[in-house]
């Protein structure tokens, strides 16, 4: 809900940035990763990777499943194939998540540049 509310303040607002640059993780997965709430993680699929802020999911337990809100950062992780449906696969993607405490979450401009290589 915070994603939708903050979008009304503008895509370049700090509120929107904070609401969509998160990776919600199961508490057990966070322990296994050795990461803390608010620390940065690198999320990588076979299509791309992006740095996001790890946060403890309030919709758990969902061990082995991570959630990233729809937006410019999440779309850095999608492929273009629509399997003749027009619709790329935006959910159920396999991803590797690792700690990235020294890395910075890209800004909206930076993530657009990251997406286009």
């Amino acid at each position, binding site marked *: *809900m915070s994603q939708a509310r903050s979008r009304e303040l503008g*895509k370049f607002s700090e509120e929107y940035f904070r609401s969509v640059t998160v990776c919600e993780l199961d508490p057990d997965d966070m322990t296994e990763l050795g990461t803390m709430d608010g620390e940065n993680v690198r999320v990588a699929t076979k*299509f791309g990777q992006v740095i996001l802020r790890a946060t403890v999911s309030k919709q758990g337990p969902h061990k082995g499943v991570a959630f990233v809100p729809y937006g410019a950062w999440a779309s850095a992780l*999608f492929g273009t194939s629509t399997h003749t*449906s027009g*619709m790329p696969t935006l959910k159920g993607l396999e991803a590797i998540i690792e700690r990235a405490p020294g890395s910075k979450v890209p800004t909206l*401009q930076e993530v657009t540049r990251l997406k*286009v290589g």
Partner: protein
Amino acid sequence: MVCTFCASGCDDLQITHDGRRVESARNGCAISVSRFTSTGQSRISKPLVRTKGVLRPVTFGKAIDRTARILSNARYPLLYGWSQTSCEAISKGVELAELVGGLIDNTTTSCHGPTILGVQDVGEATCTLGEVRHSADLVIYWGCNPIHSHPHHTTRFTIFSKGRFRRTRKERKLVVVDVRRTDTAKLADRFIQIQPNGDYELLTALRVAAKGEEIEQDSIAGVPTETVEELAEMMTDCEFGALFFGLGITMTAGKHRNTEAALALVRDLNYLTKFVIIPMRGWFNVTGANEVTTWQTGYPYAVDLTQGYPRFNPGDTSAIDAVTRGEVDAALVVASDPVSHFPGAAVKHLLGIPIVSLEPKMTPTTEASEVVIPSAILGIEASGTIYRIDGVPLEARKVVNPPPGVRSDVEILDAIIKRVKRQGRRR
């Protein structure tokens, strides 16, 4: 007043305003209040045209002139967006697409496009949300989290609503099927946690169980077979069931095969009881975009008009595919942000072609545009028709004036059409 955020179309908002700005939106959800009271945030105040790499303010006439030239000179222009504007504007969009020989697609293509493909194959047992409110004794939310995405859906239309024949929460059962225990799942009488990408498998198993046939496996998509059989029994034993499904079905592996399985399950259930299925559409007029495009071209989205007649072939004539293949050579974007939401290879191509944006607020797409024309926010600064999730048309009304010089999408598109006609098509 009708809310113009999600496609639930809540029509009980009480707005107070000072003539320029909305001060409060009583009865609105948190998202609705934010939408109505934040109209001034990040606004684009003047038409902009890119000159020497920089977006600079110009007159409305110059912006329209440049837009008309871009669209007329393109071989395969894409006209994209349309889910956050009025049916009247979408109708103008189809006229313009036909005039310039373009591809018109709406955001359905990357949300419930697979739902439409499923409906075309299987059909749809549906009803209005009012009927659900009055009669449904079993509500299922599958792959959606309305407590966050459609905050008043449960209170106005389902478990917490006071209907004519179902008046209290106790008279209804709620089942949630999701990969996570969402805030909606926490309200459920039964939560079924499914493995990612397991929807087709579970839906098909439910069809088997609902027909009274035996399931040989011990578990289906991480769900014990016993639970599958219990859910099938709840479905067949109810008097009026309503299955609402979201992007958890359409965006995962299987896509339109998943939606076909869900629609077929509900079709099967209607041999035994009354059951309906309704997609949880996102933006407030994405349903209207499908309705208008279907009236005018015969197809609901991804319509190619380059040959002088409509062609519909998702995977070929859909926006992300056509852009990724590098075929689109100009884009008119109306109330959408494909630079944020399209995958990388598609964005890379978009950034290399001229984009015209009709948008109230700054986005990465407006930043990358050749022309930006500010537009009035529908349902707050402009009036028009929108369609609710269940296909019920509603009138979204203007309450305050848009910023000086800012026009509605209909007025802007009308001006573009007139200019294109005047200068003639050049190919």
